[in-house]
């Protein structure tokens, strides 16, 4: 039972070939655009790599780049095939290549769809990676003399100023960490000694934040120390003050930024996917309708084109069988049995 049979008179075949040639070049350009979108995303992720704990999220731009390059190749061959399709003398040389070509193209097209789905679905992984990365960044803020961590202060300051955020969940994260290094604390001062003694772990904790949390839009000069002490500052109410420092947490800000970027890229790549799929479907119709012409002297007869010769399940089994045979065969050889083919 043939899937999606359609009749193709000669003129329709010619129009299909011409339209397909144009479409495949558009799809090639879209493939190049997909590659560059993948590069842009990767660059943006790498810029803030110091506040990310793992690089699981990089699978999205990597896939986009691979798919973009593959799409260029696929569409280049598609245009070449449809150029030769109308010439009965040149078309037969593609005969042997078409089956693996369609298999590879379908694989990469499905991979493109997977990349789009991943760009929406990997929010949780990104969020947990940022949670751990930011927590470490804040913890090592003061370690500007430790090799490997000396740029954490700079990175966190720049991050907070660029994204208008403060801390991991919010600015209170800075109250729980000692962000002033012992090198700059005067241990002979009574106030410092008291504060360190009052803390269980002997850390110097204060209700203050670094200067990079300050909001330039505030009408008054920035209050960064004694934030929770209303009486320490004139005309200041800690609960109602909203413009003094950034209230948003950096994790939320970064997730929002990256998800916005990935959603936009995902939407673009989805349309590229639809374009690519239509190229493949049209090419398949062209191929099957031209194959029916082969052998006939009159090339202008009406032929039928179809998508799949057998139902979907059987076609998939047909493709997977040689692959399975190959794997089973190698397994059997490894086990020691001398080259006996697996029973199908």
């Amino acid at each position: 039972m043939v899937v999606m049979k359609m009749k193709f008179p000669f003129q329709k075949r010619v129009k299909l070939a011409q339209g397909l040639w144009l479409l495949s070049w558009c799809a090639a350009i879209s493939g190049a655009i997909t590659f560059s979108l993948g590069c842009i995303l990767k660059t943006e992720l790498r810029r803030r790599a110091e506040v990310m704990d793992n690089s699981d999220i990089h699978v999205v731009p990597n896939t986009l780049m691979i798919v973009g390059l593959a799409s260029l190749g696929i569409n280049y061959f598609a245009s070449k095939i449809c150029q030769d399709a109308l010439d009965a003398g040149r078309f037969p040389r593609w005969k042997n290549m078409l089956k693996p070509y369609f298999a590879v193209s379908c694989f990469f097209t499905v991979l493109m769809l997977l990349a789009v789905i991943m760009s929406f679905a990997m929010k949780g992984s990104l969020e947990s990676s940022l949670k751990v990365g930011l927590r470490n960044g804040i913890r090592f803020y003061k370690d500007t003399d430790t090799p490997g961590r000396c740029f954490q202060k700079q990175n966190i300051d720049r991050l907070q100023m660029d994204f208008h955020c403060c801390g991991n969940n919010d600015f209170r994260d800075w109250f729980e960490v000692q962000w002033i290094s012992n090198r700059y604390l005067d241990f002979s001062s009574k106030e410092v000694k008291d504060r360190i003694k009052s803390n269980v772990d002997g850390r110097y904790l204060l209700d203050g934040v670094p200067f990079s949390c300050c909001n330039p839009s505030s009408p008054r000069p920035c209050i960064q120390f004694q934030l929770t002490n209303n009486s320490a500052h004139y005309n200041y109410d800690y609960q109602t003050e909203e413009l003094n420092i950034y209230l948003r947490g950096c994790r939320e800000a970064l997730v929002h930024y990256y998800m916005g970027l990935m959603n936009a890229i995902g939407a673009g790549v989805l349309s590229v996917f639809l374009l690519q799929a239509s190229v493949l479907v049209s090419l398949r119709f062209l191929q099957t309708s031209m194959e029916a012409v082969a052998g006939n002297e009159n090339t202008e007869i009406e032929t039928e084109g179809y998508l799949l010769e057998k139902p979907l399940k059987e076609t998939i089994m047909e493709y997977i069988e040689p692959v399975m045979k190959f794997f089973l065969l190698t397994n059997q050889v490894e086990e020691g049995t001398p080259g006996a083919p697996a029973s199908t």
Partner: protein
Amino acid sequence: MAVLRLRFTKTKRDKLAQVLWILNWISVVTGVILFSLGLFLKVEINKRGELMAERDIQYVPNMLIAVGIIACAINFLGGKICYDCVDTTKFLRWKLIMLPYIICTFFFTFCVLVGALMCYSMHGELEESLNLGLAEAIRFYKDTDTPGRCFLKRTVDMLHIEFQCCGNNGYKDWFQIQWISNRYLDMSKKEVADRLRSNVEGKYLIDGVPFSCCNINSPRPCIQQQITNNSAHFNYEHQTEELNLWMKGCRQALLEYYTHIMQSIGLTVLITWLFELSVLTGVRYLQTSLENVLRQGDLDSESDGWLLENSFMETARTNLNIIKSLGKSNQIDTQPKA
């Protein structure tokens, strides 16, 4: 004696016309580039308009925009003319316009050159404007409740952060003005009252800077208050500390930024000027060679092309006489007609 005479065969003339057609279209593109460069400079100057005092610096981007548009128009016309010059019959249409066109384009290239030189001469005016503008902005930093100045604090803070600078000449500018508004000063406190009394004009001056002057490359948390007091902070020496605050003044930072932009633009305009001049030379040769061919009668023969028919001095004298006689035609002829 003609200036720079060259011999042109028919094929050479046709090739010259075709090449000039392409070059004219390239010139249209460079005209668009000039226009967009002028627009870019205008936008950049307006972005920081609050930090610049009233000075005549808008004339540079306006000149570039005007020159860009005129270049597009002139070269579009030039392209049309050169396209028609391949066919000698069509050339007759343009014959009378070509000489005025060449003269106009010649004067226009002077404008392009003036535009390029203006880019380099804007430096002094810009520095003066920035100096006054930044001094004003720093003075009105605290006036976030005054309409018209409420965003100045934000602008100055963002300037410090973006350009990595502090104050007008340096961070010490902040010691000389009151940048904390009276609304946030507790007048009942002894320390505040003392400080106000110790100042002649009753201003609250401190040796501190806003948070935006803090240098993010500093290994220690930012010291913005009591900067000159070494004993107020542990392990701190005011004279040798370089990484705590931004050391550069904002006037110098902005000046460097704008100078860099304008030098790039000036260079581009100079290259455009040279290109326009060469296209003009080609069009002049084309015009003279086609006119000579028409004078000779045989359209397929060789002809001479030149820049000027007579030497430079003679041409200047002839043109001056023409201009003088134009002036004389206004006078009543006093001599009796014979």
